[in-house]
């Protein structure tokens, strides 16, 4: 546990020292703020506060789809490119601890961004009563969604020393999954059965059901399994590369 936290701390610190994290974070908050004021405060004036938050949460999958891979892309690629991976893997720390440490750091960074975006519902609550239960549930759902995308992004980052390749792999893989499962084009191209199966595997679809109301245990289990699977694959890649060279 201590080792995991040491890794997570350095990683989090590196987020705060890296321009990419600031650019991505600022874009997330900036674009989010613009959309919030334009679409939610002005265009949907007159609807209920809850309906306005649902609009907000509808935008989140796309935001997270870009934010998470952009944050995760450098986490392994950069270590491999700079050669620091060689030191990292020779510290008395298990590969699992390294992977979890990096994952926790990116989760914390996204958590901070989400805390900052609580500003939107807070400002909304000045215009009328807001039901905080579903709103906080929605934010928690965003965090889970981010977790899934970050786990996948980390996995993609472990595949290559080029962070742009890592970014494109995550964007394309996650983007296609979410696009096909949320549009009629997917059903048309792949058929109902495949789309139904893909829907079960899609972090975005599970997020959609969270924003509809209660946080279902099944959805929680899905996120835990999804993250666990890709973190495990991530560690496996590192272990395999040790043996293959």
């Amino acid at each position: 546990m201590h080792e995991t936290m040491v890794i997570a701390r350095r990683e989090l610190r590196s987020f705060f020292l890296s321009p990419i994290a600031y650019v991505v974070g600022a874009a997330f908050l900036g674009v989010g703020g613009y959309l919030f004021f334009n679409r939610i405060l002005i265009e949907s004036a007159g609807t209920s506060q809850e309906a306005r938050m649902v609009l907000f949460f509808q935008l989140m999958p796309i935001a997270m789809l870009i934010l998470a891979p952009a944050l995760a892309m450098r986490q392994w690629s950069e270590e491999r490119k700079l050669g620091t991976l060689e030191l990292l893997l020779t510290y008395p720390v298990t590969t699992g601890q390294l992977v979890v440490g990096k994952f926790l750091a990116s989760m914390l960074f996204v958590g901070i961004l989400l805390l900052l975006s609580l500003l939107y519902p807070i400002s909304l609550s000045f215009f009328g009563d807001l039901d905080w239960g579903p709103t906080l549930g929605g934010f928690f759902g965003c965090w889970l969604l981010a977790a899934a995308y970050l786990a996948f992004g980390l996995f993609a980052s472990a595949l290559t020393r080029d962070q742009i390749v890592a970014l494109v792999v995550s964007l394309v893989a996650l983007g296609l999954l979410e696009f096909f499962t949320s549009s009629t084009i997917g059903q048309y191209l792949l058929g109902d059965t495949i789309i139904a199966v893909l829907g079960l595997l899609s972090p975005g679809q599970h997020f959609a059901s969270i924003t509809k109301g209660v946080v279902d245990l099944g959805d929680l289990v899905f996120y835990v399994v999804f993250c666990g699977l890709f973190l495990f694959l991530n560690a496996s890649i590192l272990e395999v590369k040790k043996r293959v060279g």
Partner: protein
Amino acid sequence: MIEVENLIKDYGQVRALHGVSFEVPRGQVLGFLGPNGAGKSTTMKILTGYLFPTAGRAVLAGHDVTEEALEVRRKVGYLPESNPLYMDMRVDDYLRFAADVRGVPAKDQKRSLDRVIHDCGLQRVVKKGVIELSKGYKQRVGLAQAMIHEPEILILDEPTSGLDPNQIIEIRDLIRHIGQNRTVILSTHILQEVEASCDRILIITQGRLAADGTAQELCDQLPAGPLEVEVIGPAEAVEQQLRELFTGGRIDLLPAHHARHGGHAFRISVPPHMDEHAREAVYDLVQVNQWKLVHLYRQRANLEAVFRKFTLSAEAADELEHKARGEEVAHA
């Protein structure tokens, strides 16, 4: 302290190590020599647990590198070849991280930091960003992180590559200082460096061990260079008697400007059967004839010659020797 047994490493279809075995006793400073791509770094990467061997065994401080990887890593400090550092951190933050991740208890960290900062001469740069440092200082930071947990074993892959001569001497002194109470393996291309700082030398070439011994032992395996003699006495008699003495060798009378002490200067390629006692024989000859011996010198084979002998293929070595002989004749 370190036992390596028949280590084999394949990278895909390419075999980088063909069964390397050696042992390093506690407290020894071992120098790894070899051309680029010979397998030095691969061996070091296996010893530090960064790579797993395809076959064979390596045991460090009683722990197997594959079965007890974490135990091994606790005991080893490592400076990889490219000296990778986190460029976005400050020197003191980086060393604190290294101490943390190496499991140095919080209460001992300040002492550990002060120690490596002092030993590696980092006092002036502790508050600077790693990215601002010169190459020499970066190298010292790399060494400092390798030593922060007082490891029993230090593995340094080309610790002086890319440094200027002053920095090389500083790092070399530092390694010698560290090596007083630790087991060290270092690799280098600089032959004077192994001679200056290593108790023992391993030469690796094409994934195999080619030679093993102290610098002295390795040099003794090669015949020494030609004998330089300068004698004051009757020129013809001296030359003739030297020729008789060194039958089977080659004797060149050198031009007058080589004779710096007013005598006659000769360069003698010593025939093998005279190799051991060449100088004594010359001395005796001069004494019997009551000549005066004013210069007698024989260059011992140096590490460069040893390195070439063990790392060049047979043909390349022949060619080189041929060329060297041609130059010698031209020179005479």
